[in-house]
C-alpha cells in the first residue's frame, strides 16, 4: 500500500492512477506535462518521468512524441464517453465484465441543417456518423449514435471502432473531449431500439444526449446514447445556492 513513506514516484503514480480510475482523466485525454506536474507537486522532473513511465509500461498511458502523454484505458471500467466528473456521471453495473462493441454503421455525409446549425458550420461540411452497440460479456447495455466533424478527424473510416475507443482516437488527433454538456431522460424504447437492447418495445430506457468539447472549447461530438435501465444509473452532483 502506498503511503507517506513510499518513494515519491510511487506516490505520484498512485495519484495519476486514481485520477484515471475516477474519470478525472478520461480515455484519450492528455495528462498534464511532466514539467507542469513537477512544478505543481514540487518534485524533481525525473520523479514525474519515472511515475509516468511505470503507467506507460503498464499500458494505462501512451506517449505521442511532440503531443504529450494520453490516457489509454481505465482499469475495470467501460468507456461510454461523457461523464466521470462534474455535474452528471454514469455508473455501469458491469464490473468485472468484458467490454465489447459492435459497429452498426460508420459513414461520412454532408451536414444536415440541424448538424450544421449545431456545429456552426457550412452545410457542405462533411461529418462522420457512427452507430454502435456497447456490450458487456456479449450482452448489450447501450446503443450509441455519435456525429463528429470529418475535418477534425481525418482517417476515421479506417478505424475499427468495434475495437478502438472513439475518444482515444480523438485524443490521437489532438482533440480529446474534456468538457461535456449532458442531459438524461427516461423514454420508451421504439421497436428497433428495443431489439438492439434485447428489451420489450415500449420499455423505459435512459436516453443521454451530450455535446463534447475539446480543450479549445471546440465542439467535437454530438452524441445520443440509450442505456438499459438495469445496467446503469446516473449521478447528479448538486451545487445549490
Amino acid at each position, binding site marked *: 500500500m502506498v503511503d507517506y513513506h513510499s518513494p515519491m514516484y510511487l506516490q505520484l503514480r498512485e495519484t495519476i492512477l486514481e485520477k484515471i480510475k475516477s474519470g478525472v482523466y478520461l480515455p484519450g485525454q492528455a495528462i498534464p506535462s511532466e514539467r507542469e506536474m513537477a512544478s505543481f507537486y514540487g518534485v524533481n522532473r525525473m520523479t514525474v518521468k519515472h511515475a509516468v513511465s511505470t503507467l506507460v509500461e503498464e499500458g494505462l498511458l501512451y506517449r505521442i512524441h511532440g503531443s504529450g502523454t494520453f490516457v489509454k484505458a481505465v482499469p475495470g471500467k467501460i468507456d461510454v464517453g*461523457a*461523464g*466521470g*466528473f*462534474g*455535474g*452528471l*456521471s454514469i455508473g455501469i453495473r458491469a464490473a468485472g465484465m468484458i467490454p465489447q462493441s459492435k459497429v452498426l454503421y460508420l459513414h461520412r455525409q454532408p451536414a444536415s441543417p440541424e448538424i450544421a446549425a449545431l456545429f456552426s458550420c457550412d452545410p457542405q461540411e462533411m461529418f462522420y456518423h457512427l452507430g454502435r452497440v456497447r456490450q458487456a460479456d456479449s450482452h448489450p447495455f447501450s446503443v450509441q449514435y455519435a456525429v463528429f466533424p470529418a475535418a477534425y478527424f481525418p482517417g476515421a473510416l479506417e478505424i475499427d471502432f468495434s475495437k478502438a475507443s472513439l475518444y482515444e482516437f480523438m485524443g490521437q488527433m489532438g482533440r480529446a473531449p*474534456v*468538457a*461535456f*454538456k*449532458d*442531459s*438524461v*431522460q*427516461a*423514454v*420508451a424504447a421504439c421497436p428497433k431500439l428495443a431489439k438492439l437492447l434485447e428489451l420489450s418495445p415500449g*420499455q*423505459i*430506457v*435512459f436516453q443521454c444526449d451530450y455535446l463534447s*468539447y475539446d480543450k479549445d*472549447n471546440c465542439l467535437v461530438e454530438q452524441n445520443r446514447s440509450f442505456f438499459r*435501465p438495469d445496467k446503469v*444509473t*446516473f*449521478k*447528479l*452532483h*448538486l*451545487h*445549490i*445556492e
Partner: protein
Amino acid sequence: MSIIRTDQQFPFLSQLAGRQRTHSRTLHLEMIESNREISQFLKLPIATPVYYLRCLCLLDEVPSVLERCWIVQKLAPGFAARYNQESSDVCDLLKHAYSFSFFHGEEEISIVAPSPEEQVLLPSQEYVRMQGVLLVNETTPVVYYDHLALPELYVFSAREGG
C-alpha cells in the same frame, strides 16, 4: 411537457415546475427514529430523531411525483409545526426558516418498478427514482430524499469540465 432538472436545483417539484401549476398532498409527516438505512445516509447514530415527510405532488392536477424525505431534527427543530403553519415547501423552510445556504449533494437516478401501493398513488408501470442527500457546509447531511417520478417528467441536465 418535460421539466428540466439541473445540478443547481433542489429535487422538489415545487421548485422545478416553473410556471406549471403544482399542488402537493401531504400523506405523512411525523418525527421518527432513524433506522439503519436512514442513519447511514444521514451519517447519524441509529435511532436519531428525524422528520419523515411523504407527499404526493400533482402537476396540473395530474399525480406526477411521490416525494419522500427524511430531515435531521437537530438541524431543523420544529420542522413539522413550521411545515403545517408557515409553509408546506421544504426548500422554502430550509432556506428561510433555518437559513441554510450553499447545499451540496449527490443524487442517484435510476428506473424502478412500483410497489402495488405506490402504483395506486402514482399510476405508472415504471418510475424514475431520484435518491440523494443534501448537505450544508459541504459536509453535514440535513436531508435524505427518495422520490419516485413519472418516467418522462424530468430531463436531467448538467455541464461538466471545461
